[in-house]
């Protein structure tokens, strides 16, 4: 690690111990982007564990044919809450959490553009999440009987109509997610305003860290596609409460319209979810390969292209509905088009590592896991974009395996890379690399053991969302192996939880810049003081800390 004199002035950190009530007050009343970011990430991790437990029960039920762990009603609630939680209460707050914590630090700002709006976004998200979970207590009204929503995470009409969904559970789904969505929009507007207006002197768009670029495009997408979901949910609530007929086919309404509205949101949403992983990889891989990011302009172009194209592909979720041949052709072609910019990103990350001096620490291991698994997910994605192929496998376990490869093999692996990378910045202590490697290998083995077999179960015709199945269809062994894989995944996650709890108190002291990084967050102390930088830095290249550490050979000479 290079020991250098930083021209940037070091901020002083307050050392006084706080009492419990003082500490609680300081967290609840905070408008500091770092604390809000951490609260987002911690609440997302708690929801992650809750939804993970649901997934475990699902896999236990499906491990053997004719399973009796839970009944069909409970099973429907489990997969609905698992999906809704993972998307809206884990993925979305992770987007907000990482961008909140890192964007101001990376662009050399003292806070987000609208700190109070930021606090509002977090608390309204948490309120939405708790409202959704309150359905377990009050889903059938406050008469003491509760039931969670059971309409699936995309809540297709007419399942959500009064006739098929009695009680209030669907309303909890609609209002909880609607409210959490407001939080996401608030946070996205904040990120855009921050990157547009708060960059430190010299931080032009072309010098802005790749992480910030990706989160900027991500926020653009949130601002554009979250409102369609809100609109759909408002219509749904009007249908349910005021007797409107938007999705009521008996009055001339259209159940397909809900699908369109949902997927106009829903497809860009999966890119919104995966973008933080793209952002994290673009920072971690260069630092751990000791090379600048390969093809930066192409990477920026690719991320913007993905953002654009992803808004015109939504109906590939609806091939089985029976659209016209022209619609099928258009959406199949558009969906395949996404493969091009995504391919650019995969190739550029690989090219960044090629010829680099790789440091195979935990963050890079998770990035490698991401690259291989996300590649598989991309390939099955291209397969599913072919409309006739999709007719065969729509709503089968092949689809389940595909999107779990993107969201666990891709997103979750990327997020873990980010957590190992920035944990020392947030806490001042390193996560144990040894436990981290256990975490990685257990999760990697368990994940692949669970989800590779599910591809084959899907190809053999196993539909998603069935609560059990009969023996003799060739699905038993695939399902059993998949369920055994869960044990490894749980062991991996336990390693991570133990690692975080242990390292936060007793981990190796990290210092300000444990990885010899190049972006501005490593220029301030760990953890950073509330004001981040005593004196705002001035930047001349896309790797400002490289310039400081190597005054004889700075980047700005070549950019």
């Amino acid at each position, binding site marked *: 690690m290079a020991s250098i004199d930083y021209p940037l002035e070091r901020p002083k950190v307050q050392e006084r111990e706080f009492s419990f009530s003082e500490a609680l007050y300081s967290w609840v009343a905070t408008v500091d982007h770092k604390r809000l970011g951490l609260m987002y990430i911690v609440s997302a991790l708690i929801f992650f564990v809750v939804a993970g437990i649901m997934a475990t029960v699902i896999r236990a039920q499906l491990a053997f044919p004719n399973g009796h762990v839970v009944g069909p009603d409970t099973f429907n609630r489990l997969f609905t809450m698992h999906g809704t939680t993972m998307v809206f209460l884990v993925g979305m707050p992770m987007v907000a959490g990482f961008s909140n914590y890192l964007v101001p630090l990376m662009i050399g700002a003292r806070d987000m*553009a609208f700190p109070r709006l930021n606090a509002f976004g977090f608390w309204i998200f948490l309120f939405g999440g708790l409202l959704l979970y309150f359905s377990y207590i009050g889903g059938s009204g406050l008469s003491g009987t509760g039931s969670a929503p059971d309409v699936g995470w995309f809540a297709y009409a007419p399942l959500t109509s009064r006739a098929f969904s009695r009680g209030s559970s669907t309303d909890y789904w609609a209002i909880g997610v609607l409210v959490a969505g407001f939080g996401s929009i608030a946070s996205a507007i904040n990120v855009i305003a921050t990157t547009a*207006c708060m960059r430190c*002197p*010299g931080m032009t768009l072309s010098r802005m860290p790749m992480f910030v670029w990706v989160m900027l495009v991500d926020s653009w997408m949130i601002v554009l*596609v979250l409102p369609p979901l809100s609109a759909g949910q408002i219509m749904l609530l*009007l249908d349910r409460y005021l007797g409107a*007929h*938007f999705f009521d086919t008996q009055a*001339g309404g*259209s159940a397909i319209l809900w699908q369109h509205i949902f997927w106009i949101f829903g497809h860009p949403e999966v890119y919104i979810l995966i973008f933080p992983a793209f952002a994290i990889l673009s920072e971690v891989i260069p630092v751990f390969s000791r090379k600048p990011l390969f093809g930066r302009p192409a990477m920026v172009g690719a991320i913007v292209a993905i953002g654009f194209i992803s808004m015109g592909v939504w109906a590939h979720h609806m091939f089985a509905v029976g659209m016209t041949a022209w619609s099928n052709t258009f959406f199949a072609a558009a969906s395949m088009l996404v493969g091009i910019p995504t391919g650019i990103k995969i190739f550029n990350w690989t090219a960044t590592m090629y010829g680099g001096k790789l440091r195979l620490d935990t963050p890079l291991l998770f990035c490698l896991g991401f690259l291989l698994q996300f590649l598989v997910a991309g390939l099955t994605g291209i397969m599913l974009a072919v409309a006739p192929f999709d007719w065969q496998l729509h709503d089968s376990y092949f689809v389940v395996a595909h999107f779990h490869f993107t969201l666990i093999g891709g997103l979750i692996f990327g997020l873990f890379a980010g957590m190992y990378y920035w944990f020392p910045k947030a806490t001042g202590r390193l996560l144990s690399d040894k436990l981290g490697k256990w975490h990685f290998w257990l999760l990697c083995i368990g994940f692949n053991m669970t989800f590779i077999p599910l591809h084959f179960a899907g190809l053999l015709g196993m539909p998603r969302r069935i609560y059990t199945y009969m023996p003799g269809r060739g699905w038993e062994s695939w399902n059993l192996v998949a369920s055994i894989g869960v044990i490894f995944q749980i062991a991996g996650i336990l390693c991570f939880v133990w690692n975080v709890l242990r390292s936060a108190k007793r981990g190796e002291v990290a210092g300000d810049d444990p990885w010899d990084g190049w972006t501005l967050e490593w220029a301030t102390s760990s953890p950073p003081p509330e004001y981040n930088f005593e004196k705002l830095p001035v930047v001349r290249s896309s790797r400002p800390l490289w310039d400081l550490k190597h005054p004889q050979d700075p980047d700005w000479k070549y950019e």
Partner: protein
Amino acid sequence: MADLNVPIDALTMEREWKQPDRGTVGIIFLIITESSLFAIFVATYLIYIGKSLTGPYPKDVLDVPILATICLLSSSLTVYFAEHALAHGRLAAFKAWWLVTIALGLEFLTATGLEWKKLITEDHLTIRTNLFGSTFYSLVGLHASHVIVGMCFLLLVLFVTLFGFPIETQLRRVKFLSWYWHFVDAVWVIVFTVVYIIGR
């Protein structure tokens, strides 16, 4: 930079460093995200034109609200005059134009209220009557609720000004409010076209 070996003077760079105002960016993106919300309701309205299985139908019950439309659109002009007067320190003119804006907005809301009253009591069209009722009340109602929100802020500015608050120090916020008001007007142009021209 002619000679790349000379580092750019940090102080010069800090002095010349210009970025947009964060409030401006914030309000623009609020408008963008609201547009996206309206777009779905407008598209839904268009898709459902002529799909009602039972009456009453738009051509039987809808009257084109010409006066209300003129009022709302001209309020965009008056709010601009008010903002302009404030920017030039003419406080009396600001108050006058601001009052006119509020009066025009109230006239619009009253007209909408009377229209709905007629539709509900005379034509027996409610949100649950048919598909037309569902889409009509939700789209026009969504717009009207935005007018009400704008009206609340207009009234807030009026009251603090009347009670002696130095509103000229808040020129930036008044400008943002006027942008929001322009946006609400622009949405009305689309809603008007879709509901009263295409849909009738």
